[in-house]
């Protein structure tokens, strides 16, 4: 299939809009061809996952775009970097890594991106609407944008997101096309105990199961409460896009393109159907932890970045007790500013909470170097912590994490799983 370009798109290819836009349009067009698109689609928003330092190659790419006059053409937010720019001492890094990470972050700002530095841009003021065509990177952000906001993007990798932003186009294929957004898999959760379905602890586990089971297929999940919260959906999508390639899911009666199961399935019968039981999910729950240690060395929450509502719940659970082990809460500078303006930040820090912004504990060295056991309520942290930090990991609810942080011993309420 050959991609048909408009006159304006061809002018990008020729370099009429500058060398950076020319390279970006070449890359977008080539990927469109390989992905089987026959044209490009205009986008209105981008979210960039390329600003996290993985090595000098990413810096070379971004600085080439800056040197060649690149400038984003749509509102563009930035995902986390490898530094906490507001609390520089939080991150342990040698001089080279620190310097290159900073150069990378600066390069993306020079391209016109907003320095949001968050993996939850949708909770930091960047919320595309239902049906909007967008190009987003970061696996959880993609899942949230498609599923919860009803905006349309494929799972775009680092570098492709910025190329799309520089030419305000994406390949018109995959989840950009309305007819490709229906579910083919049905997941019935109505056999799970209602208390479990209402609990935050379910959602990362359900997401981990979903990603490992459906890969890149779209599922509609039936039987979840109609008041399932945005943070629960955030946790579900983040876990599903860690264990799988889930770019979109539906929750019947909750997410915008799934008023009911039949609509989400596009009127067709599902090709696969699952009836979930607590014992099936129990296996997934067990696999989220890698140790049976009874001692906890640190607690980390906030992947995706903690919201204001999650901070309120943390404050309620913690009361005025003081944590015995370090407790890292990763969030956006946007949420931190809201906390500070409400006079809540100092209280959190007095409890022993370490607020991390612009980055998080699995993407850059923050946890103490001597290793140990990390407890988290995040499916995504549970998935990536062993490989990226060397820590063993224990998964539990936010209440479990707080209880464990107060004593330094693993405390988990497992009554809901039986």
């Amino acid at each position, binding site marked *: 299939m050959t991609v048909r370009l408009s006159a304006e798109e061809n002018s990008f290819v020729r370099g009429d809009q500058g060398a950076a836009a020319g390279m970006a349009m070449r890359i977008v067009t080539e990927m469109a061809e*390989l992905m089987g698109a026959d044209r490009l689609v205009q986008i209105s928003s981008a979210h960039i996952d390329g600003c996290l330092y993985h*090595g000098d190659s990413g810096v070379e790419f971004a600085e080439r775009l800056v040197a060649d006059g690149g400038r984003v053409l749509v509102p563009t937010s930035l995902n986390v970097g490898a530094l906490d720019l507001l609390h520089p001492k939080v991150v342990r890094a040698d001089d080279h890594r620190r310097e290159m990470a900073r150069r990378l972050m600066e390069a993306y700002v020079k391209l016109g991106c907003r320095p949001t530095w968050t993996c939850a841009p949708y909770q930091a003021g960047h919320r595309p609407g239902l049906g909007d065509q967008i190009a987003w990177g970061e696996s959880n952000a993609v899942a949230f944008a498609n599923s919860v906001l009803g905006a349309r993007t494929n799972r775009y990798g680092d*570098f492709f997101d910025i190329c799309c932003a520089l030419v305000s186009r994406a390949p018109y294929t995959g989840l950009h096309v309305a007819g490709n957004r229906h579910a083919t898999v049905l997941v019935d959760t109505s056999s799970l105990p209602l208390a479990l379905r209402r609990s935050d602890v379910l959602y990362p586990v359900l997401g981990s199961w979903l990603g490992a089971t459906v890969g*890149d297929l779209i599922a509609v999940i039936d039987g979840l409460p109609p008041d399932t919260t945005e943070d629960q959906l955030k946790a579900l999508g983040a876990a599903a896009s860690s264990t799988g390639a889930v770019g979109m899911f539906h929750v019947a009666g909750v997410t915008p393109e799934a008023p009911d199961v039949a609509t989400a399935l596009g009127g067709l019968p599902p090709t696969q159907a699952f009836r979930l039981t607590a014992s099936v999910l129990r296996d997934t729950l067990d696999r989220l932890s890698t140790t049976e240690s009874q001692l906890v060395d640190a607690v980390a929450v906030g992947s995706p970045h903690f919201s204001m509502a999650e901070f309120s719940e943390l404050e309620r659970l913690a009361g005025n007790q003081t944590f015995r082990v370090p407790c890292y809460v990763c969030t956006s500078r946007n949420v931190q500013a809201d906390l500070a303006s409400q006079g809540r930040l100092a209280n959190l820090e007095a409890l022993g909470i370490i607020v991390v912004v612009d980055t998080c504990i699995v993407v850059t060295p923050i946890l103490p170097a001597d290793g140990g056991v990390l407890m988290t309520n995040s499916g995504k942290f549970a*998935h990536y912590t062993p490989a990226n930090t060397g820590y063993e990991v224990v998964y539990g609810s936010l209440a479990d994490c707080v209880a464990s942080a107060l004593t330094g011993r693993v405390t988990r309420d497992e009554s809901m799983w039986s």
Partner: protein
Amino acid sequence: MERALQGRLLLSGEAAGPVLKLAAPISFWGGVDPETGKISDPRHPNHGMCIEGSVLVVPLTVGSSSSSAVMLELLRNGKTPAALLLGNTDAILLLGVIVARELGYPTVPVVQLTSTQLAAVPDGVEVRITSDGRVVWPG
């Protein structure tokens, strides 16, 4: 005698190496060390194996969208597989190779095969990738 499969050539080149079939899907970010090419996720069944020089079979790219950045860094560090055999054309791994070409780094051939073809490629056997997208091995 030779056996051969005709794939869809996504990015051209010629290569040879032993086939490495992963026993589970992988996220290159959080799954492959960009400095050594070793599989770093302790939960992955191929944990500790090195992808450098292999003809790597990837039926599905899961997990992080930063896997394209890890692919680019592997190419820069010379720790890359000799070739990639993909089950789908995602905008993640493939993109890392396209960006490498734009930056003038060495690249590797990428061929798409159907799931039936991927299953027919024998694990551990030395194969050649031809410039027209065939996967060839003695048989």
